[in-house]
């Protein structure tokens, strides 16, 4: 009779287990390489890296945390979308319902505090990258991608700020979008806008300037809510996802986590 197997050994020998994990436990060099190379998520990492790159004291793990918080925001955001309708009639009441009728409702809190946290982690990530001089060649381009991602993070948070449709939301967005009105040449209150006139015809007015395009109107109203909702839930996350792919790819191609030359 065969030697008695432990349950773990038995499971590891089943066809199901072997079909999922195509290598043995990662306790030797071959399997440690296989676990990274064979997993679509883990293979973002190199198989080996310099010890300085795995030290928390060097990286603060801020870039990784930013990505992690972004993923949590995607998950909680999708769940929130089940309960939320972006119209002036329903938006505020849906938020109230989320608070009062959904059991164990901390989803909105997780999403809001997560959004604040992501702004903080992305700033600290940039701060760390600067302090270690990691933007220097060959990583100049990736630093630029990172700056764009930072701006998009702020825009994600900014567009989401409107969605609860309370006083805090619309007036914060009103303050922010009023700046767009002052864009040189493109906003109707900006320098140079009144130079673009043909006779009596004003080319840049409050009915067609950048603020109008952003809000879909002359003030923060229902069209702005819909625009911000779509920007927040679809457009910006797609662009961010794309740029994250570029950012991670270039981290690898530019030589991995920076270290002294």
């Amino acid at each position, binding site marked *: 009779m065969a030697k008695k197997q432990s349950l773990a050994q038995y499971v590891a020998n089943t066809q199901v287990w072997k079909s999922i994990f195509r290598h043995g436990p990662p306790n030797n060099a071959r399997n440690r390489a296989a676990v990274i190379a064979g997993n679509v998520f883990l293979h973002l990492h190199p198989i080996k890296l310099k010890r300085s790159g795995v030290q928390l004291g060097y990286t603060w793990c801020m870039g*990784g945390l930013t990505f992690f*918080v972004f993923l949590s925001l995607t998950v909680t955001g999708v769940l929130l979308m089940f309960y939320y309708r972006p119209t002036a009639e329903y938006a505020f009441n849906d938020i109230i319902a989320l608070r009062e009728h959904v059991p164990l409702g901390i989803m909105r809190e997780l999403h809001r505090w997560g959004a604040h946290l992501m702004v903080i982690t992305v700033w*600290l990530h940039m701060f760390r990258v600067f302090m270690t001089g990691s933007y*220097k*060649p060959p990583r100049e381009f990736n630093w630029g991608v990172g700056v764009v991602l930072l701006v998009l993070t702020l825009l994600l948070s900014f567009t989401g700020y409107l969605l609860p449709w309370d006083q805090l939301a619309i007036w914060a967005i009103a303050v922010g979008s*009023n700046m767009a009105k002052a864009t*040189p040449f493109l906003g109707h209150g900006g320098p140079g806008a009144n130079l673009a006139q043909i006779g009596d015809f004003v080319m840049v007015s409050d009915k067609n300037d950048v603020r109008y395009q952003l809000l879909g109107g002359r003030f923060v109203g229902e069209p702005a809510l819909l625009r911000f909702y779509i920007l927040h839930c679809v457009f910006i996350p797609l662009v961010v996802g794309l740029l994250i792919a570029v950012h991670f790819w270039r981290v690898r191609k530019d030589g991995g986590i920076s270290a002294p030359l």
Partner: protein
Amino acid sequence: MKELVNTLSDPKYSFTGVIIGFYLFMKYYRTIGTVKFFISSMIIILGVFIWMMQDPNFHAIIVWPDNVPIVILLFAVIFFTWFSIYKAAINDARIEGGETPVEGSVENREKVWTWPNLVYTELMAGTLCVVILVIWSIFLKAPLEEPANPTWAPNPAKAPWYFLGLQEMLVYFDPWMAGVVLPGLIIVGLIAIPYIDTNPKGNGYYTMAERKVAMGGFLFGWLALWVYLIIIGTFLRGPNWTFYGPFEVWDFHKVVAEANVNLSEFFWIKGLGISMPSNIFLREIVGLIVTTGYYVGLTLLCNRSQLGSSLMKSLGKIRYYLLILLLLTMGLLPVKMYLRWLFNLKYLVAMPEFEFNL
């Protein structure tokens, strides 16, 4: 005592304090980057913070849910700034002694397996992050105010906290500068950093001594302007965007006697005692000269300084002038702040005819 704190928090004093503090920070970073310094200053900071929290006015503004992240950011910035300086001080001492920085030691150059070393760290960091977020979410409800009402604006109406530095700049600049040109230049300037900074040293390790100019420029913009202005905009600006000390009640009737005067009015009316010319460009001639002089004159002065000429040599003309342009534009903000505080100056160049006010 509280009166004194209220007075000293006023940007004109606190910003001066920040500038002096920043200078001392850059000069004595090796003393600051020690564990002893950190612990003793943390005890003082936390002590002061706890003492301040006893005040109902300060307490109310700190615990307002959307302000909590700024408190977290503030302590995170203090910690991580100190921490990177601490590592930089160690490395600088090693480099002076002819050694490699810590990150470049033989042991640290050695390659280790991603599994389990890195994967484990990531798992722990992610788990800790979830725990913090869940606890934060259970104990602090997300704010929700009255339903949106486009006909009634709250006072003060504030942008989200990460944009409050920009909103604070509105005190000193018109929206086209504070909301469009300066933020645009921040983005352009950040992207330009790796192309301007040609110093090959300090790539991949913490150091201060090997890249002091780059450090000084970046840290000043990040700490003394961006983070500082967010703190002012969040905690110390009340109704009508008036300044309120940390212990002051947000009294809607606080009247601030502030009659700001344009440079053109200073020159023609107060200076020469005649009425202002009707030609716009003649009227604003002094402001135009001063602004041009600020850019051209200071550039020439930089060219002649020792640091300037050595930078010109190492960077080349294009990089050098781009750097000067970005730094001088960043410098416009503190310059305009002090002109406001000292002379109640409103605009250097005031051309409301073209919505062009600087």
